[in-house]
C-alpha cells in the first residue's frame, strides 16, 4: 500500500516539476518566439522551413499552427500572431495587411496512367465535378462511369479548386470525398476510371497529370503564368514586422529557403 502511495506521490512530483521547468527556465526568457498560423496547405512547408531556420538561429523559436487561411488572416488582424499564412489571395477588406508572396503551388488534375486522355479543357473539368459529365464516353473514351474524387469541405486545396476551376458552380454531392492529397492520389493510382486533383508537388509516375487547354502543369508553365490552376502561398503581417520576425521572412525568401520549398515541389518566387 505504502509503495503505491509513494508511486502516486512520485508521479505527481514529476508532473509538477516538469511543468515548472518550462516556465521558469532562464533560457526561455532570452529567446524570441515567432507565432505563425493559418492555411493548412502552407503549414507543412513552413514547418519544414522553421526546422531549418531554428538550427541556424537557436535563439528564435518558431511556433507554426494551422487553422485555415481565413482564421490566419483574422488572427493577423487581431495581432495575436506574428505572421499569418494564406493559400488564397486577400479579399478587398483584408488588403490592410502586408502580404509577402513566398511561393506558388500548382494544382494538378490527375487520372490513372492507363487513361488515354492527355488533355482536357477547363470547362470539361468543371462539367465533370459539377456532375454534368458522368461518363468517360462523353470525353471520347470507353463507356464507363467517371469516378471523380474531391477534397472535404474546408480544405484549402478544395477552396482553391472551387475558385479557380469551378468558378460559380457547385461541386456535385455524388462525388467521392477524401480528406488528404495522399488518399486522393492513392485512389487515382489504383482506380483506372478515377479523376481527382492534388498538389503539383505530389504528382509522380503513379498518376498522370492532365494538361489543361493544352498547357501542361509544370514549373515552367506556372512561372510563366500560362498554367492557370495556381494558388499563391502568402505570408501576412500586420504593419512592419519585428526584427526577429523579419529575420525569418528574409530566410524564407533567401536562396536557401526557396530551395527547400522547391525541393518540396513548390514553385519559388526567386
Amino acid at each position, binding site marked *: *500500500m505504502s509503495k503505491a502511495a509513494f508511486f502516486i506521490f512520485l508521479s505527481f512530483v514529476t508532473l509538477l516539476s516538469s511543468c515548472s521547468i518550462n516556465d521558469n527556465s532562464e533560457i526561455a526568457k532570452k529567446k524570441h518566439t515567432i507565432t505563425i498560423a493559418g492555411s*493548412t496547405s502552407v503549414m507543412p512547408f513552413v514547418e519544414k522551413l522553421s526546422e531549418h531556420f531554428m538550427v541556424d538561429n537557436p535563439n528564435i523559436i518558431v511556433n507554426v499552427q494551422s487553422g485555415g487561411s481565413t482564421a490566419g488572416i483574422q488572427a493577423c488582424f487581431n495581432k495575436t500572431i506574428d505572421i499569418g499564412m494564406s493559400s488564397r489571395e486577400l479579399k478587398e477588406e483584408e488588403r490592410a495587411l502586408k502580404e509577402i508572396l513566398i511561393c506558388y503551388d500548382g494544382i494538378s488534375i490527375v487520372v490513372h496512367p492507363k487513361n488515354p486522355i492527355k488533355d482536357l479543357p477547363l470547362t470539361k473539368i468543371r462539367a465533370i465535378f459539377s456532375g454534368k459529365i458522368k461518363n468517360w464516353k462523353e470525353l471520347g473514351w470507353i463507356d464507363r462511369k467517371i469516378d471523380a474524387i474531391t477534397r*472535404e*469541405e*474546408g480544405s484549402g486545396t478544395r477552396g482553391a479548386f472551387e475558385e479557380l476551376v469551378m468558378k460559380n458552380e457547385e461541386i456535385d454531392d*455524388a462525388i*467521392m470525398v477524401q480528406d488528404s492529397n495522399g488518399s486522393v492520389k*492513392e*485512389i487515382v493510382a489504383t*482506380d483506372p476510371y478515377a479523376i481527382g486533383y492534388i498538389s503539383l508537388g505530389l504528382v509522380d509516375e503513379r498518376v498522370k497529370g492532365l494538361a489543361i487547354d493544352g498547357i501542361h502543369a509544370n514549373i515552367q508553365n506556372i512561372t510563366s503564368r500560362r498554367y492557370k490552376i495556381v494558388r499563391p502561398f502568402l505570408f501576412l503581417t500586420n504593419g512592419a514586422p519585428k526584427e526577429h520576425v523579419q529575420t525569418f521572412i528574409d530566410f524564407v525568401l533567401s536562396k536557401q529557403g526557396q530551395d527547400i520549398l522547391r525541393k518540396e515541389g513548390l514553385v519559388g518566387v526567386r
Partner: protein
Amino acid sequence: MKEYFVKYMLMAFALSSLFFLFLIFIFILFEGLPLFHKAGLKHIILGSKWAPTKGSFGIFPMIISSFLVTFGALIIGGPMGLSCAIYLSEYSGKRMKMFLKPALELLAGIPSVVYGFLGVVYIVPLVRDYFGGPGFSLLSTSLILGVMILPTVISISFDALMSVPKTYREGSLAMGATKWQTIYKVVVPSAKSGILASFILGMGRAIGETMAVIMVAGNALRTPLSILDPLRTLTSNIALELAYASGDHRLGLFSTGVVLLIIIMILNYIANFGIKKGS
C-alpha cells in the same frame, strides 16, 4: 484505516469513469445544441444538403447512410456470428473451443485502421472489378463492418446460448427430437433476447465505427441509390472535416455528434432492455 482508504480510493476511480461519461455528454451537447437553435432542428435532421461553409447543415443523407451500412453489416455479420455461436456452444468439442475463442478475441483486438486498409487494398478493387462502380461503396463498407461486428455478435450470443439450462436440451432430446431440432426449436428460442441484444450491440459497434468506414465508403454526400454507390456516415463526416472546421462548420460537426450520440444511446437502451427481459 487502511481498508477504508483503499475502499474510498477505488470508489473515486470507479466514479471518475462515470464523471468522464458525464463530461463528454455535457461537452457534446454544449457545443452541438446552439446550432440546432440557430439553424433549426428540421433543417439539420431532414435537410439533404451539407455545405457547412455556405450555411447548409442537412445531415439526412448521412443518417440514412449510417443506418444502411449498419443493416448491411448486420445482414453479413449477423447470420455468420450466430452460426458461429451455435457451433461453439452446441457442437464444438473442448479443444475446438479452446482454439476458436482466443482467435475470436484476437479478431476483436485488430485495430479498425487495419480493417480499413485491407478493405482499400483488397475489397474495394474486387468490388470495382466484379460489380462495377468506384468500389468505394455501401457493399464494401458493409462487408468490412460485417466482419468487424463478428466478435461482438458471437461472444454475446454465445453467452446467451450457454445460459440456456441443460435440462431444456435433455428434455427435448428425451422427447425424441434430433439435435438440430433441439437447437432450432428449443435452445435458440430460449436465448432469443440475448441473441437480439448481441445484434443490437453489433449495430452499435457498426454505427460508431469511423476509421475503417472513412477508408472504404468513398464519403460522397448524396444518399446512395444502389449498393455500389459511395456514401458518408455520421461518424466519418465528423472525422473528415474536423481538422479544418471553424465557426458554424465546427458547430455543425458537433450537431452531427449529438445525433449520433442519441442514436447510440437508443440502441444501447434497447439492447439492455432486451437482456433484462430475457433473464
